[in-house]
């Protein structure tokens, strides 16, 4: 790519390993995302997706390399475990923390923004429910609302659709695409390659803590790459009849140990 683009979220030579351990969880990872890009991070369990995301949002300090952020970052972790009870609305309000001083408290406009964020993920009715009492999917929607309430320029989401039903998966991924269209840079990890094919402008394929491929989903997510990544035959079929595009379909049927590993 010859043209100059402004990098909103980037990483250069990013690496992470636990103190006093030799094994690198993540190693020499570079990526660049421009304004309004939606990047899906794919990879099998334990390859370092969550670690990458935590490094990108600054929740953890990298052992090597640098992170570059231009703008405020909103982060949706896989899960949050409050030690004490708080309401769903309060959880969303915490998304506003970046704009609230050390001794400050949320104001009326913060409450309004939090409620609006909840409505946007169709979860307005959960506002006064205690967060710990919500179901897994409801919690994910609330955490998504929390990131929306932050009015961030960059959104980083760790498997936000893992506990969602199909409707809410479509709702959430559609919302992310909409936000990207508005100029927000989105990085989302997922175990659903289809989400990447349907919504993402970039796909990052991670394997064993390293970058396996990075580029437009249509190109890098071919059958060979996906079969490699998931150690399972994957075929791509055209979806002309419904919505255009392609579907990536895993072949689960043959027992996994009979498949020759790439």
């Amino acid at each position: 790519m010859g043209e100059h683009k402004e990098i909103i979220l980037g990483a250069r030579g990013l690496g992470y390993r636990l103190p006093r351990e030799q094994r690198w969880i993540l190693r020499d990872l570079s990526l660049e995302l421009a304004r309004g890009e939606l990047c899906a991070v794919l990879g099998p369990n334990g390859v370092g997706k969550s670690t990458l995301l935590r490094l990108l949002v600054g929740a953890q300090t990298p052992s090597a390399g640098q992170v570059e952020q231009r703008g405020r970052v909103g982060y949706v972790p896989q899960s949050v475990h409050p030690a004490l009870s708080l309401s769903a609305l309060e959880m969303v309000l915490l998304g506003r923390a970046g704009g609230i001083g050390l001794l400050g408290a949320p104001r009326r406009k913060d409450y309004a923004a939090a409620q609006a964020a909840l409505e946007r993920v169709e979860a307005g009715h959960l506002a006064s429910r205690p967060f710990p009492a919500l179901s897994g999917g409801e919690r994910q929607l609330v955490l998504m609302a929390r990131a929306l309430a932050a009015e961030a320029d960059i959104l980083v989401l760790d498997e936000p659709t893992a506990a969602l039903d199909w409707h809410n998966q479509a709702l959430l991924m559609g919302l992310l695409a909409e936000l990207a269209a508005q100029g927000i840079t989105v990085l989302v990890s997922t175990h659903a390659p289809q989400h990447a094919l349907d919504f993402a402008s970039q796909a990052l394929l991670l394997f064993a803590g390293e970058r396996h491929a990075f580029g437009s989903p249509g190109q890098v997510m071919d059958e060979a790459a996906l079969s490699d990544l998931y150690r399972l035959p994957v075929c791509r079929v055209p979806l002309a009849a419904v919505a255009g595009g392609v579907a990536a379909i895993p072949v689960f049927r043959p027992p996994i140990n009979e498949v020759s590993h790439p």
Partner: protein
Amino acid sequence: MGAHSQTWRASAGLLALLCLCLLAGLSLGRYAIAPGQVADILLSGGNGADPVAVRVIEAVRLPRVLLAALIGAGLAAAGAALQSLFRNPLAEPQLLGVSSGAAFGGVLAMLLLSDGPPVVAGALIWGLLALLAVFWLAGSQAAGRTSGTVLLILAGIVVSGVFAAGVSLVKLVADPQNQLPAIVFWLMGSLASANQERVLLALPCIGLSLALLYGLRFQLMALSLGEEDARSLGIRVGRARFLALAAVGLITAASVAVCGVVGWVGLVVPHLVRMGIGTDHRSFLVNVMLGGAAYLILVDTLSRTVAEVEIPLGVLTALLGAPLFAFLVRRIGRGLEH
């Protein structure tokens, strides 16, 4: 925001309860004074009232209930803050080691100097030294790393252990005829020596700390999600935690300085408020303070009225607090099961 006005309504109710407790604390005792007369003395300054009653109220009971209210509010809020900070519903002010440090300072002053003001000063100073020791032991790591909370708790345990040993050592060398009984009694906690000076000492220490904790209420809620999540939300974890711990330490040291070691308040009151009223962060700390003040006035009044001799306050807070907490634990346990 219906739920909001509801929690503030609860605060108004707690305030009314606190006033009732104040009135009860002022009128009950060996020299009973009718509540009407108490109100009269408070409002009119005692013109034409029974001079003994005026003297009892002004010199003895008023400082005592005010001190009870301050310490009750302080310890309860300190407990609530630590429960958020340490993400543990079982945290209470004694966990930090400040209480042991202050206890050591108090008994050391009794051994080397005398009862009274030296004990207050010794407890306050050693309590704050213990707080510094905790910060130093936990190290600069506590400011930023993910394991900061654990380090702080471990440091608290170490400091607590060292000073508890120090207290035992002082007891060992104290004169068993005069000093030892005084030391043992002081350690059990009592408001019997409350006076105006002690109120004036505790008021700025505890008042300022309470104001600081109230200011930090939103940060405390964020910290209860854990350091990593709080940091990703843009919370300056190290700074917020340092300020909250300083406030908790000052409250604890000042409490031990003026009334000895009083436990359980910081554990029981926040849970009572959570169960009975709710956790809305806007009013929660205020409710905890009001509830703590009312609770300690009530317990202190009991301590000097239920028996011929005064029961030490710390004994009674434990005697009442432990079963109350056992009851709460059963309910918390049921709440955790889903």
